[in-house]
């Protein structure tokens, strides 16, 4: 029982990271109807930036964090201009192939620059954690959960209660109508990419002290986050969060009770089970193409 509680805590912490990346997926999907397959690489790039600033250059942690996020914002903008924007009027297949190309490009550019050796990044706090009854609460996991809650609340407020959030929503629902109402659609899509890159980046930086910082971390996280969006219901914000948390918990229990080497395989099994039995996910509705 104690072990189960401990695993639950760990699972929720990891799941929160998947949820953040999944949110990035969902936002871009809603704005552009395209899945960004390089979403996971945003996390990887941000984690490596942290390693460069905080470890190699030995800057203060908070400064490295801010500079990394500025870097991510620029990356999100460049990604939009270089990968999505030129293909915006083509069908979805060329666009997803291009984002896959971008994902390969980002991962291997980092590999070429930094080498294959996984890097270690310290956690934010010096205190390793606190003991609460039978459960040991690791400080980094607590931080992840706290940040995720703050970001989700912020996002809700931003989209529901600010004008720019409303404009973003209008853009994602009907681009043509939005542009007729004077909303700068290209700008809104640019903002979405920047924001998604930031979300992915924050997730990457938060999870980096738990995992090693490696080239593969992007692909792994993206796969889990994508599975999370399908479990939750594609395109659904609440679904992405619930799906991410659920996946983190399932995976942690699977690793503890079934098999460690195949830990990354559980996401796939859950994914296939959902695709076969409930493809619309927990919250999604089946939608047919309009004739």
């Amino acid at each position, binding site marked *: 029982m104690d072990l189960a509680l401990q695993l639950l805590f760990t699972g929720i912490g990891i799941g929160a990271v998947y949820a953040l990346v999944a949110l990035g997926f969902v936002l871009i999907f809603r704005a552009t109807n395209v899945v960004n397959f390089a979403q996971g690489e945003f996390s990887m790039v941000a984690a490596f930036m942290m390693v460069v600033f905080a470890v190699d250059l030995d800057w203060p942690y908070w400064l490295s964090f801010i500079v990394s996020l500025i870097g991510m914002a620029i990356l999100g903008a460049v990604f939009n201009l270089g990968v999505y924007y030129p*293909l915006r009027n083509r069908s979805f297949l060329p666009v997803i192939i*291009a984002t896959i*190309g971008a994902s390969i490009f980002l991962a291997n550019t980092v590999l*070429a620059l930094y*080498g294959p050796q996984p890097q270690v990044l310290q956690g934010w706090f010096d205190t390793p954690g606190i003991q609460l009854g039978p459960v040991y609460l690791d400080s980094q996991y607590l931080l992840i959960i706290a940040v995720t809650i703050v970001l989700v609340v912020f996002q809700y407020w931003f989209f529901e209660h600010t004008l720019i959030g409303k404009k973003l929503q209008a853009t994602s629902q009907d681009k043509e109508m939005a542009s007729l109402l004077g909303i700068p659609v290209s700008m809104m899509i640019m903002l979405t990419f920047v924001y998604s890159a930031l979300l992915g980046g924050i997730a990457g930086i938060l999870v980096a002290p738990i995992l090693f910082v490696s080239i593969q971390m992007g*692909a792994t996280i993206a*796969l889990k986050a994508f599975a999370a969006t399908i479990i939750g219901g594609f395109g659904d914000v609440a679904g992405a969060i619930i799906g991410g948390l659920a996946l983190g918990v399932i995976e942690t229990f699977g690793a503890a009770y079934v098999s460690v080497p195949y830990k990354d395989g559980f996401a*796939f099994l859950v994914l296939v089970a959902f695709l076969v039995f409930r493809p619309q996910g927990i919250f999604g509705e089946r939608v047919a193409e309009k*004739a």
Partner: protein
Amino acid sequence: MSAATETGKPMLPAALPGQLGYLALAAVTVAAALVLPFDDYIMHILVQTATYAIAVFGLSVVLGLCGQINLAQAAFFGFGAYAVGLGAGDWHLSFWLSLALGAAITLVMGALLGMSTLRLGGHYLAMVTISFQQIVTLIMINWVSVTHGPDGVGNIPRPDLFASAHGFLAFCVAALAFVGFLVWRLPETKLGRSMRAVRDNELAASVAGIDVYRTKVAAFALCALLGGIGGGLFAGGFSYVSPDQFSFAESIVFLTMALLGGVASPIGALIGTGLLIVLPETLRFLKSVPGLYLAIYGLAVILIIRFMPDGIWGFFQARLRRWFPARPYATAARDLVLAPAKGESEAVLEVEGLSKHFGGLKAVDGVSLSVRRGGVHALIGPNGSGKTTTLNVLSGIYTPTAGKIALDGLDITLYPPHARTAAGLGRTFQNIRLFRSMTALENVVIGAEHPGNAVTDAASLVDRARSALAFVGLEPRALNEVTSFSYGHQRLIEIARALAGNPTLLLLDEPAAGLNSTEKVELRDLLRRIAAKGLTILIIDHDMTLVSDVAEHITVLNFGRRIADGVAAEVLRDPDVIAAYLGSEPDVPHRA
């Protein structure tokens, strides 16, 4: 993806000289592989090119022809390779048996993976194939007792008949030529045409009588199979396999090869494969920095997609086509024969209590409708009255919430769209849905080719399609791309596509929308000519002049309910109908 391989050429005349030429070229290449004195290094490169190209052909089928993505081709390649490695190496089975087992396993794996995902959109397929790729890699590395883990499998024997390096190379080249021939000819077969139709427009493909899901699964399984065969031969050629040769990165290499050469044709696949095997060999310095070389591949993918979406071969092909445009047919098209089924019942379509609810919205609410055999029946109603939803339920795009639909006495309520087409339903769309990479003729051939229509062989399909095009007046331009036709003519091609399938009932969804007044008169005459041939038409339209000119019978919907039904002239005088159109408040039926 845009333009396909075979567009602009007459689709079916037997390309015998081309096939003989191919055979001769293949024979010469196999002979060259046997006798030319290559050193070991060149041999390696050639075997690698031949075996990789077979796997890339798989991507030509699934991505080029059918428009579905597969990011796990290296996993299927690896399955084939490990089947031969473990079968022939560890377990001392014969090479051929191992190769066949590997091929069978990849075929089944591909079919299963496709079946679980292909009902859903392309994003799912992309992510699921990536996941599958990663699982396969995990198993190859971790299931050490069988796969030898990261050490890989060595000492893989070759078959006795092709034990020498030259012999095996010749065999690989022969296999490549054989598979290449099949992939080259595939677009000219029923399956190939179905794949192209699915790629261009799934909805239109399904109402043209194509089982979209089955076609996609077939394409995906075929792709996996070719991956497995290529991998099996690769294992024989190199006698050593290890997990890193079949990683996700290699799947991306396969994808880049297909895209670079031109994803729509096996020639492009071969060009891409050859280039991406030879180029990195000559640019060896790139390999000294890990990652650099794949980073360039990633960048190449983005640039190719943006600037050369049809690849190298597609680029040349477009030029060639411009210099040698297709010649129109010399002979005149035959008269279109429409032979709608003549069942017992007086009504060709019988709809009872049909409902379609979207959540709380009752778009169609208990509509009953009887369309009598022969003549034109119109379904009208103000905007939002549920006309198009009714049509979509009738053609099987939506499943009804309640009710029963019988076509010519046959209950088709639960049939999927393609089965309804087989049962005798034809339709057009309000917003034109043609197969945009194809010629007018090819579009109509696809309409003619479905179970339930007697025409099957290539020549009579073309005959049938030409006569349908002639009937709407567009036969002289049969070999032009559909995108080069005006909006009004594209509508006519859609009607011809439906007519070529010899339906029992033709559903027309706002055929007059967007037409100018001359085109509307032409459309009216066309509808009269169709009706004169004994085919029943159910038409939805807003143009009351057209409706009152052609329809003998009218049903009126408002707010998802039937408010009038009967002989045209009477219905148009009905006060409820006038109220619904002009909006006299008290007469609007209460909305449930």
